[in-house]
């Protein structure tokens, strides 16, 4: 189903990042996509189901959560962090700032595992997984 993806801060993300990026607090706070309760129902998702969030720039598996900041039908929210950054638009349009809000995205239920914070950095960037997938999506060289 198609959504608009926004990323941003949440208090639990702030707390998690100060408690340490390898802490459970951080993982719980950031490896998630917050959805409107109506959208969850329409997709047949339950709390804590693994979902794949896909944009033109990448894809990442996170847990679905019912948003505490609802209603926001048609909008999904990911806390600013390792997982959200896999799918944001990296080009900056000559301002120095990537587009982190209002990115067209799709979500689907998946059986894949949610990666840990350090693991995600290692697999996506150190091992080059993000680059490979972006090349498959043919978006590595024409991201605007």
């Amino acid at each position, binding site marked *: 189903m198609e959504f608009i993806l926004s990323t941003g801060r949440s208090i639990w993300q702030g707390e998690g990042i100060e408690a340490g990026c390898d802490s459970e607090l951080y993982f719980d706070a950031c490896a998630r996509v917050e959805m409107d309760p109506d959208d969850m129902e329409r997709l047949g998702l339950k709390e804590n189901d693994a979902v794949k969030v896909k944009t033109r720039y990448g894809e990442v598996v996170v847990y679905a959560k019912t948003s505490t*900041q609802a209603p926001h039908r048609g909008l999904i*929210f990911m806390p600013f962090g390792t997982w959200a950054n896999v799918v944001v638009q990296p080009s900056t349009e000559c301002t*120095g700032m990537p587009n982190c809000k209002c990115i067209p995205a799709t979500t689907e239920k998946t059986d894949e595992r949610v990666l840990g*914070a350090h693991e995600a*950095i290692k697999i996506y960037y150190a091992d080059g997984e993000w680059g490979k997938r972006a090349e498959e999506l043919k978006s590595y060289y024409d991201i605007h």
Partner: protein
Amino acid sequence: MMREIKNVPCPFCGCLCDDGVVIVDDNKIIGTRNLCRIGHQKFAHAQKGRFETPQIRKNGKLEPVSLDEAFDKSAQILANAERPLLYGWCSTSAEAIQIGCELAEACGGIIDCTATLCHGPSLLAIQDQGAPSCTLGEVMNRADLVIYWGCNPMHAHPRHMSRYSVFPRGLFRKRGRRSRTIIVVDPRRTDTAKLADLHIQIAPGSDHMLVHTFREIINSYDVTHETVAGIPADAIRETIEAMGQHQWAVLFFGMGLTQQMGKDRNIDVAIKFIHEFNKYIGTKTVLMPMRGHYNVAGSNVTICAETGHPFAVDFSRGYPRYHPGETTAMDVLYRGEVDAMLNIAANPGTSFSNRALAHLAKIPLINIEPHNQQSMQISDVVIPPAIVGVECDGTAYRMDNIPIKMKKIVDPPENSMPDTVILGEILKRVKEYV
């Protein structure tokens, strides 16, 4: 012996609350009072999970080395690089940033701070338009209309509303919250919106359009559409009318405006809106960016004082050059220009976008950071520093550019030195190598 240290500035967000109480027992932090839950975590976690020694990556694994070796290796990497990037600076002292500027000049690199990823576009707009602003004390004493646009202070700046803008009683606002009107503009019904008198739930990505509609009404043009940005035109007219009935208004804006399409242009129109509001309506209106980390405003102030430009300063031609979009950290990484990076007091693992991180993984990364954060996975040199505001003092600037002296609460671990010393040592060695 247990002791309480009072009036401690909190080294987390741009609010820099300086009324914190930290309880220390025998050089160990055991508790805090007055701080928000994020500020509490900052102090509670500061001494846990620290690196004891500097480390260098050998055969794909980080291995402990002596301080001398780590400084030497860092200086070699920076001196041999064609286009090094010195990034971070948001959670360290202004004194360390001064040395950082000198280091950037010595190695002919680019110095950029995390403002590039939060309020960089705001700075661009402020350079274009100017910014009518004020201090937070003035907001507390005078504001009777507070607008939060594209920000969620209940989550990102938890004590902002209770200390500066909404709840405190001020000189001319004796009844605190009851003498103020709060308007929140956000596509989600956030926790801040739940506290507001009016929540304008706009369609995502249409902030620019809505501000323009506000300007249209103020300039006495007709709004021809029935709804704009998902809001009925009548409601927008009524909002402007209600806003005009106040004496002193402040607009706080956050990432909602700077991180979406339009970026600096969104702030441009917001500033124009403020100008016109002052000109035609008569309500005194100011605006202020909601700065993220505690010294991100200070990094702009300091880099500007040292080089003449607020961020993204390139020294590769021997003199400071500023060209956002070309010399900003994200862009040089995105285009793959950078061949070495020094990261200090920031966390690229959580804040850089995918393609920038993909390039960062390929180049040497020197990380001056006390805790095991994600970017350690791709770091080549790790130097643990003392944490500013907890283990060493320094100057930081609040979001309204007021300098505040940070306090030393406890002694740092044995091998952790202040950022100023670490950067000074690297600078000394870089000058020898270059």
